């Protein structure tokens, strides 16, 4: 078996739609203004929209985490003006639904150990992917990843690899919600945050920019945001590790950002052909 050339491959895609939900960032349009510096960033608790397209019975079963992930994905798909039915989807999150996890653990620590069936099937890490397919009728492949604090970069890498290898548009949704006490003390995520991207292999009239990603060694420090409150959000939420990239996109500013990934790696993303 021979050694492969050690050159770092580069993964390229066009960003055709963006979704954003976070504290003081109700959607991409308003988030864009804050990230571009057109408006002052004003943090306030995240407002999670009700998901569109689910039958009422299914909608009632969704919790905040599913609503957040699906809400951001719906923004991105609407902006991309793309049919979600055949769109493969990558969902990536550091945790599944923290409230459900807490409720199940409380039940299991009680005398009767009764677990609600709906809570149990909503406790899976891929619940958002499942409800996304129910809301949109999407029958293409979907996946649900976790890479702890590197979950955004892991999701972006998986999505870019799909675009590159299969030459198809791909949806990425990266998201986290808060854990209630007592888990909150062990994993202190401050609020809900989600970012979604529709990534396509070819340029279209409505693309925002072209991005090219490559792995970097951990010697490259991840980019920080100059605005203290946005930087605090980036540092506190795994999905908000995307903010340096979103800031370039908001400013339509070509350049390169280094994003947090895992111990030995960073993910460098070049932004070009901004529109």
């Amino acid at each position, binding site marked *: 078996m021979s050694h492969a050339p050690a050159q770092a491959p580069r993964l390229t895609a066009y960003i055709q739609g963006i979704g954003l939900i976070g504290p003081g960032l109700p959607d991409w349009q308003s988030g864009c203004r804050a990230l571009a510096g057109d408006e002052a960033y004003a943090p306030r608790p995240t407002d999670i929209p009700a998901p569109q397209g689910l039958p009422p019975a299914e909608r009632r079963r969704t919790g905040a985490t599913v609503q957040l992930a699906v809400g951001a994905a719906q923004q991105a798909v609407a902006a991309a003006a793309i049919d979600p039915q055949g769109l493969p989807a990558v969902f990536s999150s550091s945790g599944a639904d923290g409230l459900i996890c807490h409720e199940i*653990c409380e039940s299991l620590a009680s005398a009767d*150990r009764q677990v609600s069936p709906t809570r149990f099937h909503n406790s899976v890490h891929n619940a958002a992917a499942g409800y996304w397919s129910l809301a949109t009728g999407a029958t293409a492949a979907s996946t649900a990843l976790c*890479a702890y604090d590197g979950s955004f970069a892991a999701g972006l890498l998986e999505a870019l690899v799909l675009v590159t290898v299969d030459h198809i548009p791909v949806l990425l949704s990266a998201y986290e919600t808060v854990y209630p006490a*007592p888990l909150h003390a062990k994993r202190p995520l401050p609020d809900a945050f989600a970012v979604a991207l529709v990534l396509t292999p070819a340029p279209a009239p409505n693309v925002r920019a072209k991005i090219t990603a490559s792995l970097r060694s951990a010697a490259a420090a991840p980019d920080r945001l100059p605005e203290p409150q946005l930087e605090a959000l980036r540092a506190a939420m795994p999905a908000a590790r995307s903010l340096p990239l979103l800031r370039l996109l908001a400013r339509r500013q070509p350049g390169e950002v280094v994003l947090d990934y895992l111990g030995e790696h960073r993910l460098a993303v070049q932004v070009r052909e901004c529109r």
Partner: protein
Amino acid sequence: MTPLVLSHFTATSCIGRGLPATLESLRAQRSGLAPCTFETVTLDTHIGEVPGVDEVRLSATMQRFDCRNNRLAQLGLAADGFIEEVAKCAGRWGPRRVGLFLGTSTSGILETEIAYRHRKPETGALPASFDYAGTHNSYSLAAFAQELLGLTGPSAVVSCACSSSAKVFGSAQRMIAAGLIDAAVVGGVDSLCLTTLYGFHSLQLVSRHPCKPFDIARDGISIGEAAAFAIIERAPASLDSDAILLFGVGESSDAYHMSSPHPEGRGARAAMLQALDSAGLARDDIDYVNLHGTGTPSNDRAEGKAVAAVFADLASAVEASSTKGATGHTLGAAGALEAVICALALRHGFLPGSVHTREVEDALGFEYLCANRRRSIARVLSNSFGFGGSNCALVLGRAQ
């Protein structure tokens, strides 16, 4: 896809620790399912518990990862010289060029369940010793395995319920195709916990008896636990004739229901057809189908319809079975465990019969095997389906 070689693989489940014990159990059609005495569980059911997990000790530097799931991972990685083979693989390509993609559904949640019994009465706080990142978080499995194996390539956990550790083959294959890595360790680890035992029980999907997949009297699953791993890498120009290859991967979504399969097996059918297409194979190239075959009435009915539709009107009916009567349903580890069982079937020339299944429906549309058959086979398909309508099918085969 370009076929990739499974240069090494291993499995640990209730039917055996490592390949020789697993092979012996499969050949003897021995089940590892037994009445549940796990932890403080009081359910009347059978489970597939791996003996000796509680006795596993993690090294002093990795204590933050200590939980049943990572103990089972270590037990599994230590079998069949797997750790040494990963070191050789990392030597061939460089540790940064070897990815790590593992599936789990519940990771180390048992630690959290136990911690919730020991909250401080005054504050409700969890014990100081509870380590969220090292045990509870889904990624703890991959973080632990990466440290144990000394790998530094891209890594992620796939957590798509019971399709998780089949889907890792797809993630790794695409990353190799994109040139980011040259090889990957893939696999799955899921361990017994109260969340799944009581959760599946609440959905009335658990049998009191050892599960009997595809039996006309089947009445639910038996939950098991397992750790199964494979090294997959770019195939060299010449391969041994008994080398095992990954030929194809198919993935789909049901878009039907969170916990019930599409009644006609729509997503299952799509995943199987896509796996055949990705392998460049025709239906009649497949010698054996390792079914997801959980043993619930609706799962097996839907999968049966899907398999019958894919393999309809062949000159000789395709042979198929579920191995969950032996191993139990190992949830997020099932895809990798059954891929390894398929690799053993290919290498040793046998088709595993379904343990505990006595009587199957007529006119299934394929031949469901209750007894082992000895026969050389070249191409097999393995199905894994999960909650959320997540489907994955793998095509594996011999190089010949």
